[in-house]
């Protein structure tokens, strides 16, 4: 099992996340897809850390986790506030801002 396999897996996960952001309609699910992208980056970082023989990548992965946790707090607060008004978390219903 070479390290390349992990990189390919991470790239696939990242792509699934990115496509999910573009096609899913529920804000919570979109947000989960973004988290998937962040975690695939973590996998990439840890794999490269192993390949380079340094711990930098693993330390960066910790930072990413902390930032992702902060992002969850902010994101859920924003989605919650819009849900309480509209009773819907669909990004298609949020359509007041356009030409």
């Amino acid at each position: 099992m070479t390290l390349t396999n992990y990189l390919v897996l991470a790239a696939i996960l990242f792509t699934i996340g990115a496509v999910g952001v573009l096609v899913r309609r529920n804000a919570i699910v979109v947000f989960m897809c973004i988290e998937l992208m962040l975690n695939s980056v973590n996998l990439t970082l840890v794999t490269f850390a192993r390949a380079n023989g340094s711990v930098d990548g693993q330390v960066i992965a910790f930072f990413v986790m902390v930032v992702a946790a902060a992002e969850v707090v902010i994101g859920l607060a924003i989605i919650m506030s819009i849900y309480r008004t509209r009773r819907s978390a669909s990004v298609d219903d949020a359509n007041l801002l356009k030409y």
Partner: protein
Amino acid sequence: MIEAPDLSLAALTPLLFVFGAALVGVLVESFAPRHVRQPTQVALALVGTVGGFVSTLLIAGRSEVTAGGALAVDGAGLFLQATIAGLAALSILLFAERGLDPAKSAFVASAAVPAGSPRDRELLTDERVQTEVYPLATFAVGGMMLFVAANDLLVMFIALEVLSLPLYLICGLARRRRLLSQEAAVKYFLLGAFASAFFLYGLALVYGATGSIRLSEIRESVSTDGTGTLLVLGLGLLIVGLMFKASVAPFHTWTPDVYQGAPTPVTAFMAACTKVAAFGAILRLLYVAFGTADWTWRPLVYGIAIVSMVVGAVLGLTQTDVKRMLAYSSIAHAGFLLTGVIGLGGGTGSGLSATLFYLLAYGLTTIGAFAVVTLVRDGDGEATQLSQWAGLARRSPLTAGVMTFLLLALAGIPLTSGFTGKFAVFRAAIEVGAWPLAVGALVTSAIAGFFYLRLVVLMYFSAPAEDGPSVGVPGLPTTIVLAVTVAATLVLGVVPGSVLDLADRAATLVG
């Protein structure tokens, strides 16, 4: 045994000042009684931003890498930090304006109350304000100042999040039209998080290709080992993430919606400060880390610059809302700024000083323009429809005159700062041989000039509507902002010499 990294506290004073003020702001929010919070928070945010501004001036001329190599305090970094702190202080003044609206503030009294509920209508004219906006904005300012000094991709990422997360929140805190505001916050948040995931993947790929995230080590690795697919791919993803923050087309889709939905003082803050911060990071990344391999990013940035100018200028023509129009103007200006980035020419061109000057000039003008937008009101808050601005000159010649002057500056008419800035970046692009780009930029500035002039014509030569908007009498904070921005736009247009010299002397990046 872990050794602490060497910290040059003197070089970090601006950052410490701003983050310190933000942290004290959080304490005030938790412990001070409600009625003293608003004045205390405004004072604190002003002390933080003005203090940050003054301390950058005091340590001007320093050039060093500190904090274990993670931060670079140099001419360009300090110039941008001073710009951000100064523009942020002006924005905080706009935040603090309470005299214009019968609803007492641009910010919601209690963000937790659902929009449109009976309690929400009760709170509409309440004295209370969600004063968290001040510490949040101060944190965002701190993040921006860290962003332009980041000498390491991880610090850059952390700073990106520190500046973005508070901005997502304060976008959603408008007192009127709360649904629009909340929608803007959701869109900004989802797209912003999406873009930072791309930035992060770019970081991981660059780390994999070079074994380091320090900008100087990436440069060494690029010059000794050359550039592989992994590195170029990583650089591309990093650029996507940064361009998103700088609202450059084709990564601009959030910009019009968020600029329109967010409270206008916040829009002014984002349009001016976020742009400065994002371009600071773009300059540092491209110049310090990839300056010796500029063929890797030059075609990409070249293309993006053209797309951004064209999209901003052409779509700006079709807008019917003043805030959206200014948003497209900001996209077009991002394209003009990228002409200056192209003018870097691997570090030998005058592009760096030109871009620094342009950022300062554009930031001041755009804050002034949004300050005028806060003045024009009808019963339902700000009147941002273009049709409502018809005949404004007859209602208030002074307001229309100020707006006309600022719009002419955005269009780049001589004797305004916009002209000086555009001249500087176009010259930098021509000097490195990118004259097709400069010609394209000239054509698109002419197109963009049309929609600025359309608003001017509308204000002066149309009959005012019967039930048209009234022009509010600005309180002290907004008056200060308007006076400063108009004076600066004029001075930077008529006698730009000393500031251009300053930008020239500041145009160094260490790392």
